[in-house]
């Protein structure tokens, strides 16, 4: 498949010896807009970290399309809000892929920073110190930075936390605009209504993919029930996962595949 922006090959990610993402197979099409949903601890953020490369796979691999530029908005940003920086300094970091460490910021760059701030409704906030921003304003500032990164693959990890309804609407519009620009977008979301209304495709995770594809299909009650039943806690003495078990992923995860045969367009597992 040539139009795969991301390919997961038997991807297992985790901490210590415990998997948080267990044998994930499948592709994310270029230009697709996917919501990643699942309970707490189902591996959503872990998957994001694995895609960015912050977390190395325990097994398998994430293959990115050649030369794809990635923008990542983490759930728990390591942003130091007490650092003496202004909004414009923070957003300008988004110019890194374009200007690198040494490239001088041009007049156009400064204009694009202003434009990005306008786009998230923070026009005129350039000179504000970042420690005076509210939680939602900071989130929008980080969106502006993503906007500036001009990335082909955009990963947003719970971007709507602590954001008011109007702002969520604005940010959704922004995401849809990116979608229209053929960018590949994956968003971790908790609000299922939001997903149903705005995201064409959904990946439902419970450590293993429960369902993946067309949103309506994926979020069917029986899938949600299956996802809810997943056991969140680690078992210290859980049996070791032997290679032979997942070589034949088709038997192992047969439930995953049933849905994908139902419809044609979604990404398929394995």
């Amino acid at each position, binding site marked *: 498949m040539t139009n795969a922006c991301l390919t997961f090959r038997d991807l297992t990610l985790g901490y210590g010896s415990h998997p948080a993402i267990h044998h994930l197979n499948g592709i994310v099409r270029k230009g697709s807009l996917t919501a990643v949903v699942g309970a707490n601890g189902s591996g959503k953020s872990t998957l994001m970290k694995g895609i*960015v*490369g*912050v977390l190395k796979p325990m097994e398998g691999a994430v293959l990115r399309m050649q030369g794809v530029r*990635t*923008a*990542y908005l*983490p759930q728990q*940003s*390591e*942003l*130091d809000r007490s*650092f*003496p*920086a*202004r909004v414009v*300094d*923070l957003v300008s*970091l988004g110019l*890194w*892929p374009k200007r*690198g*460490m*040494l490239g001088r910021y041009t007049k156009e760059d400064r204009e694009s920073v202003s434009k990005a701030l306008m786009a998230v409704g923070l026009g005129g906030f350039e000179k504000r*110190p970042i420690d005076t921003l509210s939680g939602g304003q900071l989130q929008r500032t980080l969106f502006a*930075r993503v906007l500036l*990164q001009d990335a082909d693959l955009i990963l947003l990890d719970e971007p709507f936390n602590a954001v008011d309804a109007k702002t969520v609407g604005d940010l959704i519009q922004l995401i849809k605009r990116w979608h229209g620009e053929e960018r590949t977008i994956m968003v971790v979301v908790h609000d299922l209504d939001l997903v149903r209304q705005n995201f064409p495709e959904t990946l439902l995770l419970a450590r293993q993919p429960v369902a993946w594809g067309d949103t309506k299909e994926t979020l069917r009650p029986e899938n949600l029930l299956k996802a809810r039943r997943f056991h969140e806690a680690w078992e210290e003495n859980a049996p070791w996962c032997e290679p032979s078990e997942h070589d034949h992923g088709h038997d192992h995860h047969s439930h995953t595949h049933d849905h994908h045969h139902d419809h044609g367009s979604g990404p398929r597992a394995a």
Partner: protein
Amino acid sequence: MDFLYGLFIAPFADFAFMQRALFGSLMLSLGACPVGVFLMLRRMSLSGDAMAHAILPGAAAGFLLYGLEILPMTVGGLIAGIIVALGAGAVSRFTIQREDASMAAFYLISLAVGVLMVSIRGSSVDLMHVLFGTVLALNNEALTLIGGIVAVTLACLAIFWRALVAECLDPLFLRSVSRMGSPVHFIFLGLVVLNLVGGFQALGTLLSVGLMMLPAAAARFWTVRVEPMCALAVLIGFASCIAGLLLSYHASLPSGPAIILSAGVVYFCSILFGTRGVLRARIVHHRHRTA
């Protein structure tokens, strides 16, 4: 006029050793103060202090082997400092332990080694110079060394500025767009060691961190941006050096502590009167705007 001349100019105009001391300490401020600003912003102020202690065994080893010579002591201090900085940095970056704990572990080990070395040779007056510095006896060798260190520091800061700011402000973001995160961290630790070693000729191993941290800590109370903060820290460093040297000349005090104490005075004044200081926050905010 004559009185003022005698007070401020004559000590430097009349004595070559005062000129050298002034020149050396001003150069030191130029490099150490911006480094101190970043050290403070990264919440590693005490790491600087730990690093200063860590340098001691290296300098002591150089002293034991070659006597009171600048070069061996500097090289020794540099090696000890870099081992501790890299070791502590690596432990904190690649294991679950945070930098404060790993730094404390490494510097305590280093300090113990240093004390052990000193006790082998027995105490010596010269060793006091290592601990407390001899800013009034900076020779050409030492001045050249400090000059080199300042040049390297300023060049590194200019080159890595953006990465350094990004690493302080949002390290996870930097990791997602570039591989510079870890290298920049270690380059920065290297600069800290370099400047502490440069400072210990003049101020001693224990006080050299003072010229790094105090002006930076004081500058924090005056501005909300990094660039002016660095510039202001350098200016405060300059002022402290001049005031400290004059104080030590007129009152026959040891010059190292006099310089650091001058910086301390600026620090306390900044706490009180700075635009982000205590008084301003308490007094001025009775009025507010409509939006």
